[in-house]
């Protein structure tokens, strides 16, 4: 339990401390320190959970499903903080923001991590809502950090769209509580996920499906599912790069996590009704549309960060589809994909940060010859994109392969669609990537001081996961799979 | 027994015609007092009518038979519509025709001939008034029907006598739908009877007038009938609001006592309504003709909300 408290509340404490820190150079280091402490806490927590199974109490609940996301969140937070220290110094030196902006950045970074960790570890669906809304509030000022008209527009769009989405999710939560009141006698337990999961077969199917629609639209906005995705490319492209890394790598995951938790309840409630798979079908539909359309949008992007945010939408769509498909294999692949996508995407955003630093612009047309200017960045981008596009032997390939196999077993026709979508996305990424990495180097382009360590660590992990998933991780994911789909895989 | 019922009915019909000028006089008096004027006596509308009936009726050369017949048709249709609404007691033979659709139909008939007569002579003002009148009524009529249907849905009948009876039996229930219907109907009444802010009955300001423009060519007994019909219409809407929404005190028996109590009560209610109308006309300013649709849209919205809140909030599945 102590480990859990350390994990969740360290960032909050860190955020509060950082409010008072005046010296910029210290703030960057403190940021790293706090994130490292969080990561250590999360690792300890993971060991504890591995040893004792589920950890419950004080309306927190850590089980196999969220513990690995907690570790992932803490880890990506830590590596991003390592990257952001020099990067944000550079940003500050170019005059895009000032000391106040930097302080805001550090404080909000920690508060954002706090809300993410809280959302993941809480057992109360109401708190989950509060935390996810809190994540919007923490990041929205960061999106407009540079104060350009574009940044402010992006932030406003982000605020309004996510605000609307999250409001609908609250309505869904109210409906969920309403359904719970018929079954759970203790009113304060009515929003406890574990309690509801225990009695999910008794929940009213009609109300649960209604609640699911609202919650899916609400949290789906945060996931970046297709009709509600409008905020995502803007917020990613206009915000500071470390922010894009954590938004893509963490926030989307957490929102999807929320959707999956709710789906577990709805599936239980609908199991006996005439249409037991409605929730799954909805997820599959939204997921597939997002996956395909985002793949097409990749082709017409002019801004490098925008392009990778569409790639995020595409992958979130794929995971949503996989969770919707259900079954142990698809669930396992989705869980693995969450992991590898987070690692790869945050690595890519970090590399992109360096690439834009080198060329001084985010326009794809003006980023050229990275590999000649600075081989580390060029190779990093190349390998990162190869990984995210699903090349073997990277982890993304493994998870996508597993998903295709699962699709083949249950819905063979969708395999064709998926393959087509993957090919489209692949082509979209590489037609832009090739000139950026190999193209002729513009006159006077200088290498920059880049810390490629986080990128190498992330990509190394993804490679490791692709070649051989370590036993302990496989067991974790398997337990999570069992929790979600009810069946063991291994 | 039957004879006394019919006598009571006849009394009610005559009362409508007799009370109509009084209500107008009363509203004018109160308005004058609110504006710090002494104002004419409340009996002035009677004197006006008397004077007009005594005068020669002049007509334009281009006027057709329609122009000559219109005042009678308009007056009779309005009177008939009014007489159907329970005034002092409910159990009357006329209750059978006290259906909102009948009343709306009779009013539409009156309006149709009024507009035709306005256009008949071929003057610009008459045509303009007629077109505006139809424009306003096209918006007001659905709102009125919707508002009354809200009540009808509660009482399960479009017969006003049944609606009033239902209200009396199931009193002390607060109904949001009634509240909306009342507000909507009030707005419709204001627009339909040509009061401020939709129209101004007191002026002949050319650019804004609606009702006055149509009867500009009339004189003598024709004008008297037209004026009287307009006064009847005001009374009709007043009684509709007073008796349907606040039916308490209306005579439920056929006896003389019940009827006289009913008379006293309705006169009191109408007097209060007149005061309210006078106050609102003093406070509000006449709106531009092109704002009238927005005004009537509000009435329609209120009526629709009444209908919806009846379905959503009052029925329950």
């Amino acid at each position, binding site marked *: 339990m102590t480990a859990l408290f350390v994990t969740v509340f360290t960032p909050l404490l860190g955020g509060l401390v950082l409010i008072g820190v005046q010296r910029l150079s210290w703030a960057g280091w403190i940021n790293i320190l706090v994130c490292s402490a969080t990561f250590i806490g999360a690792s300890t927590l993971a060991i504890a959970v591995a040893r004792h199974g589920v950890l419950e109490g004080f309306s927190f609940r850590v089980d196999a499903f969220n513990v690995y996301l907690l570790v992932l969140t803490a880890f990506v937070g830590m590596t991003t903080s390592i990257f952001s220290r020099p990067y944000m110094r550079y940003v500050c030196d170019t005059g895009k923001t000032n000391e106040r902006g930097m302080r805001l950045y550090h404080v909000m970074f920690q508060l954002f991590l706090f809300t993410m960790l809280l959302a993941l570890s809480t057992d109360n669906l109401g708190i989950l809502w509060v935390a996810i809304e809190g994540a919007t*509030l923490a990041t929205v000022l960061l999106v407009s950090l540079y104060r350009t008209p574009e940044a402010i527009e992006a932030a406003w769009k982000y605020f309004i769209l996510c605000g609307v989405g999250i409001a609908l999710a609250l309505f869904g939560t*109210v409906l969920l509580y309403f359904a719970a009141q018929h079954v759970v006698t203790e009113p304060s337990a009515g929003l406890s996920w574990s309690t509801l999961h225990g009695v999910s077969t008794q929940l009213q199917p009609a109300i649960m499906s209604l609640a699911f629609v609202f919650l899916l639209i609400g949290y789906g906005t945060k996931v970046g599912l297709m009709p509600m995705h409008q905020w995502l490319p803007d917020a990613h492209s206009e915000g500071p790069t470390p922010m894009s890394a954590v938004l893509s790598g963490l926030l989307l995951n957490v929102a999807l996590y929320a959707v999956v938790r709710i789906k577990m309840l709805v599936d239980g409630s609908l199991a006996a009704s005439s249409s037991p798979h409605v929730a799954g079908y909805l997820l599959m539909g939204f997921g597939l549309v997002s996956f395909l359309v985002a793949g097409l949008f990749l082709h017409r992007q002019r801004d490098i960060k925008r392009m990778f945010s569409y790639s995020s939408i595409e992958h979130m769509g794929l995971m949503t589809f996989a969770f919707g498909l259900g079954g142990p294999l698809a669930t396992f692949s989705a869980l693995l994909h969450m992991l590898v996508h987070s690692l790869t995407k945050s690595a890519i955003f970090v590399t992109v940060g360096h690439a834009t630093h080198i060329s001084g612009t985010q326009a794809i047309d003006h980023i050229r010859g990275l590999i000649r200017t600075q081989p580390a960045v060029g190779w990093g981008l190349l390998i990162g994109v190869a990984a995210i596009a699903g090349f073997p032997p990277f982890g993304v390939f493994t998870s996508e392969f597993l998903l295709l196999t699962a699709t083949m077993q249950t819905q063979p026709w969708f395999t064709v669609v998926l393959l087509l979508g993957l090919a489209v996305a692949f082509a979209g990424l590489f037609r832009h990537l090739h000139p950026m990495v190999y193209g002729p180097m513009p006159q006077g382009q200088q290498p920059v001081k880049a810390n490629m360590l986080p990128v190498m660590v992330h990509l190394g992990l993804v490679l490791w996961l692709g070649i051989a998933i370590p036993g302990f991780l496989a067991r974790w994911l398997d337990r999570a799979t069992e929790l979600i789909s009810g069946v063991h895989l291994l | 027994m039957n004879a006394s019922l019919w006598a009571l009915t006849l009394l009610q019909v005559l009362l409508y015609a007799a009370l109509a000028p009084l209500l107008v006089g009363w509203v004018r008096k109160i308005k004058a007092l609110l504006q710090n004027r002494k104002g004419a006596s409340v009996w002035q509308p009677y004197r006006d009518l008397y004077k007009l009936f005594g005068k020669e009726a002049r007509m334009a050369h281009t006027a057709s038979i329609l122009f000559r017949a219109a005042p009678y048709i308009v007056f009779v249709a309005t009177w008939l519509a009014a007489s159907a609404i329970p005034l002092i007691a409910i159990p009357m033979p006329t209750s059978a025709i006290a259906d909102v659709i009948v009343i709306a139909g009779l009013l539409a008939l009156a309006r149709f001939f009024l507009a035709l007569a306005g256009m008949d002579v071929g003057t610009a003002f008459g045509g303009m008034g007629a077109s505006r009148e139809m424009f306003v009524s096209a918006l007001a009529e659905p709102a009125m029907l919707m508002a009354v249907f809200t009540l009808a849905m509660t009482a399960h009948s479009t017969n006003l006598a049944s609606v009033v009876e239902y209200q009396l039996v199931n009193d002390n229930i607060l109904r949001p739908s009634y509240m909306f219907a009342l507000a909507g109907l009030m707005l419709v009444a204001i627009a339909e009877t040509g009061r401020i802010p939709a129209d101004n009955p007191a002026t002949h300001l050319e650019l804004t007038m609606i009702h006055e423009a149509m009867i500009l060519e009339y004189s003598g007994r024709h004008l008297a009938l037209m004026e009287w019909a307009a006064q009847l219409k005001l009374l009709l809407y007043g009684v509709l609001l007073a008796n349907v929404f606040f039916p308490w005190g209306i005579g439920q028996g056929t006896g003389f006592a019940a009827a006289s109590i009913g008379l006293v009560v309705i006169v009191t209610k109408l007097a209060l309504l007149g005061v309210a109308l006078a106050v609102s006309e003093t406070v509000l300013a006449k709106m531009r003709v092109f704002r009238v649709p927005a005004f009537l849209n509000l009435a329609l919205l209120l009526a629709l909300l009444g209908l919806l809140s009846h379905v959503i909030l*009052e029925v329950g599945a």
Partner: protein
Amino acid sequence: MSLDHLTLLQQFMVVLAAVVLFTSFVLLQQSRLVAAVHAFAWQGALVAMVTAIVAVAGDQLHLFFSAALTLGLKALLIPWMLHRLVRRLELDRHSETLRHPALVTMAALALVIFSYWAVAPIVQQELIFTRNIVAVSLAVVLIGLLMMVIRTQAVAQVLGFMSMENGLFLAAVSATGGMPLVVELGVAFDVLVAMVLFGVFFFQIRESIDSLDVDRMNRLTERVDEP
């Protein structure tokens, strides 16, 4: 549960809920910002009154707390903040021309009907006397959403957002007799922080485009600019 089975106090609550719905329409149609802020404040006060009546009539005393919270936050604090912002941004005299007001009203009415249809499964549960209001609360939420879509003025959009939150408070009260305290506090905190951030954004937007008409923010689209 039809209306005549309710006590007078409960009937009064139903009437108030209907008025809440009406204020949503007023808010939707109001072109002057100050008046819209007032309408919003009234809506908050009405929601608080409904909550208080449910607390009395339903014997759920913990709802008094959430009534007080709603009153303080939605009827006093946030309207006050908005009022101050409107004055500091010199928008007191601002009035926005609404496009297609009749069409918008019809759309809002359609949303009310949709809400009724959507929450029908809840209404069929004989649980508490407030369940008829659930449709109204969903309608308030959706009309707030509609307002955010059709209004281009940033402050008006925020009013739509806040009115959505009013609908959610009403939903929590009417469907479930109030959420657990910790959740309610969390939601209120989030709303308050959101309001502060909205205030910050008003100034940022005005600094950036010299107006609060967010329709003028159109730099980020999926348009392909040929070089």
